[in-house]
């Protein structure tokens, strides 16, 4: 197994991966001669960097894009894309095993072909890499430089000795796994999102340390592939930012899948003995040593802010929270902005995308768009998936906003019943005695798709009263949202209104 920060890729060099690498870091690439002064130099070609480069170039700006590794960043290469590809196969295996639940026969011989799972993933990744390719960037007029960037002044930087001058710059260098907190880890081979998708064999026994989105998604997927999986989470529940019921349903789902769930548990020591990895786990007054073949670390992410010589540019930063930016995403150097994981608390592809668009407007076109104005949904793609947008009840109450939650369990939704996907709920939080949506949490098989309707409503200022008038195709699981809106409408029928209606209907 390869340690993190591997250059390029250690995936099997099949046709799929050759295609991907040709798109995201072609062999024999030669950096162009820099143009005079760029309107925008973008450091980092993950989601934020690519979006900013394409958007700025499309608007006529002279743009340089610098990447030290692979175009597409984590999302394409070692994040969302490969994880969702293998999660799909994992779900299929789970459904095959539960075939009787759907009135079908369990296939006689369910064999896990892990190599095929990963080959399919590589094929999907290669296909999606076309849209992030260097060729598209060149066609868009972007100068692409591969190499390590470092600032040499407040309006200059260098890539492998080549100097670039800029009017504005964007730091979009992303983040990497935080693996510093577990004693003994650095002495052994371990997995993170950066190398787990390069595996060619399924580990027989897997310990996942960390119960955030990455740990939860991959623990469930690998368990469904047949790995004996333990997940150890230091907090009392998984996904500690999510609401209690959501996290509890996820714990229950994990237990149903056969994952050994260890909450309130900390890994305090890791060592190798007899070819296996021994990990000491401690939970309050209880400790146990588990033996596994592989360890996946998902204990958070830290921003990539080193090696950039930010001091020379006058850019303030913190090694934990990243580049310090204001609400307009401008750093302490008014020429330099940041976007994506390098500066944001919410480290998601879509927030990287949205923040990059803000930077293009603010840096190049005197825009005054604010990060705080964004309505950001997110989703953890477990089964059931957990999606959220807006405020949690806790946050609303902390701000002294009276809040009421309209809850529809998925077992009240016809399509969920038909699909045998009844675990979960839609909870929509509104300001008490109004229909204004403050936020929502959805736990459902397709929560990620369903949350978009709530996000749209919030951005457009649409309340539950209007949502109740939106015809939803029947039968769909998103009908749960309509049911919540209908429930709101029924609460408007006060006793007085009911009395008036009865009087009216006496004719």
């Amino acid at each position, binding site marked *: 197994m390869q340690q993190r920060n591997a250059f390029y890729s250690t995936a099997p060099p099949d046709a799929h991966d050759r295609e991907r690498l040709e798109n995201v870091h072609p062999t024999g690439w030669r950096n162009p001669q820099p143009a005079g002064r760029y309107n925008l130099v973008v450091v980092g070609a993950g989601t934020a960097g690519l979006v900013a480069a394409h958007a700025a170039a499309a608007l006529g700006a002279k743009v340089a894009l610098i990447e030290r590794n692979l175009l597409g960043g984590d999302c394409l290469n070692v994040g969302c894309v490969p994880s969702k590809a293998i999660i799909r196969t994992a779900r299929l295996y789970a459904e095959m095993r539960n075939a009787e639940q759907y009135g079908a026969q369990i296939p006689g011989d369910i064999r896990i072909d892990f190599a095929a799972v990963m080959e399919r993933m590589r094929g999907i990744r290669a296909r999606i890499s076309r849209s992030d390719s260097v060729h598209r960037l060149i066609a868009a007029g972007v100068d692409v430089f591969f190499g390590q960037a470092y600032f040499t002044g407040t309006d200059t930087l260098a890539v492998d000795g080549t100097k670039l001058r800029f009017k504005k710059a964007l730091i979009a260098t992303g983040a990497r796994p935080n693996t510093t907190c577990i004693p003994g880890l650095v002495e052994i081979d371990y997995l993170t999102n950066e190398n787990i998708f390069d595996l060619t064999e399924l580990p027989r026994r897997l310990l996942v340390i960390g119960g955030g989105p990455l740990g939860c998604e991959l623990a469930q997927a690998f368990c469904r592939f047949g790995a004996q999986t333990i997940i150890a989470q230091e907090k009392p529940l998984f996904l500690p930012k999510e609401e209690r019921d959501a996290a509890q349903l996820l714990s229950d789902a994990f237990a149903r899948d056969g994952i050994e769930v260890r909450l*309130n548990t900390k890994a305090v020591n890791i060592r190798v003995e007899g070819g296996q990895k021994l990990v000491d786990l401690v939970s*309050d*007054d209880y400790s146990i040593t588990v033996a596994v073949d592989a360890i996946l670390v998902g204990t958070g992410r830290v921003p990539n802010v080193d090696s950039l010589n930010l001091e020379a540019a006058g850019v303030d930063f913190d090694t934990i929270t990243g580049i310090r930016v204001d609400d307009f995403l401008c750093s302490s150097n008014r020429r330099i902005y940041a976007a994506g994981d390098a500066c944001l608390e919410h480290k998601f592809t879509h927030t990287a995308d949205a923040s990059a668009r803000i930077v293009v407007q603010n840096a190049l076109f005197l825009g005054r768009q604010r990060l705080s104005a964004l309505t950001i949904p997110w989703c953890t793609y477990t089964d059931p998936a957990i999606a959220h947008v807006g405020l949690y009840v*806790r946050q609303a109450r902390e701000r002294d906003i009276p809040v009421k*939650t309209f809850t529809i369990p998925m077992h009240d939704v016809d399509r969920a019943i038909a699909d045998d996907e009844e675990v979960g709920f839609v909870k929509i939080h509104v300001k008490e005695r109004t229909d204004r949506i403050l936020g929502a949490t959805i736990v459902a098989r397709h929560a990620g798709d369903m949350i978009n309707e709530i996000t749209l409503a919030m951005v457009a200022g649409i309340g539950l009263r209007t949502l109740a008038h939106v015809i939803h195709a029947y039968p769909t699981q998103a009908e749960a949202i309509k049911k919540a809106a209908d429930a709101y409408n*029924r609460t408007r029928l006060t006793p007085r209104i009911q009395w008036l209606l009865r009087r009216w209907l006496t004719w």
Partner: protein
Amino acid sequence: MSSESLINEQRLDQLQRAAFGYFLQTVNPANGLIADNSRENSPASIAVVGFALSAYPVAVERGWMARADAVERSLSVLRFFRDSDQSGSPEATGFKGFYYHFLDMRTGARVWRSELSTIDTALLIAGALTASMYFTANTPEENELRELVEMLYLRVDWRWSQGGAATIRQGWKPECGFLHYGWEGYNESIVLYVLAMGSPTHPLKDNSYEAWTATYQWEHLYGYDYLYAGPLFMHQFSHAWIDFRGIRDRFMREKRCDYFENSRRAIEVQREYARRNPNRFAGYDENCWGLTACDGPSNLLPELANERRRLFGYAARGVPYGPDDGTLSGWAALASLPFASEISLCAIRNMLQRYPEMLTAQQYSSSFNPTLANADSSAWVSDGHFGLDQGIVVMMVENYRSQLIWRLMRDCPYVHAGLRRAGFRGGWL
């Protein structure tokens, strides 16, 4: 249909008295400790002792026990706690005025490496205060009883139990200090906060109750607005001692509701869940419900080892998100009587008619599960009788019949002070 025709007073009396019988069957007369459950070698549970201390006055009023006997039993256990080892060592009985959750029936030492439990200590102290409010005669025994209760209450260091946090921690262990969990979200712990806020010696910080209620979720579910908590006991336990009718804290004022009405709605939600029965378990309907903390079948039992569904053993079952393995508690309907008598009486009668096997000598077993029917079609029934279940039945049936416990605790100055500091106003306050 009238309540009387559903289940008559005599039947109710039988069930209540049988529940009280638990405390006579499982007491260690030498120290007054009561077993957690009826199984062999069960340790004592401090919370069950709290229920016993509250049940003795009921027994005296109902003529099931002589006053002197009740006083003697109460004194016995109160003296035990006064004299108990409070060093906080792994084999002690308590620390800082709190007690370990489970104690050796004979020695009173901590067992099962259990936690120093904040909620269970509160239930114990609530029971002790109930006794002190009832046994008010000017006799040497009853004077001593009240002095003991005063001493035990005043020495509880509630402030310490916050562990520096805004809310009370769930527990503490000598091996690792405070447990990770705090008390968050609505649950059975209002009585804990009220006692802790009302303490003249070690009260919580002023913002503690507000910090806890900030974690509440007010939900509209199945057509009912209510303060959400899944298991039914969370809507019952604090209510066994405190009459929440008409008194409101800031949260309930904002919601134009009170905790008593909230429990009534929680019962309606239980009925709705059972009517929907999303997991298609046998027996569930609007008159057969009761998902709460209880014993239950387990895949570890040899006779259920081949059961493909997950079974949860002893667990806090709840609605609408479970866990739910088809296990219901008949006694939960009795404990709901004060809130929704007609509904509860329907359920009590219906469940007893259909599953009489849940009673042993008129005493409710912890749970039954009709989905796991035996060869003779009778429901699976827990072979355990649990003190918490019997205690809540004795108290809530009494509150339904005479409001005895509520009346006693309404006059308790510490409860008054705690409620007021927590922001309760109105009604009998």
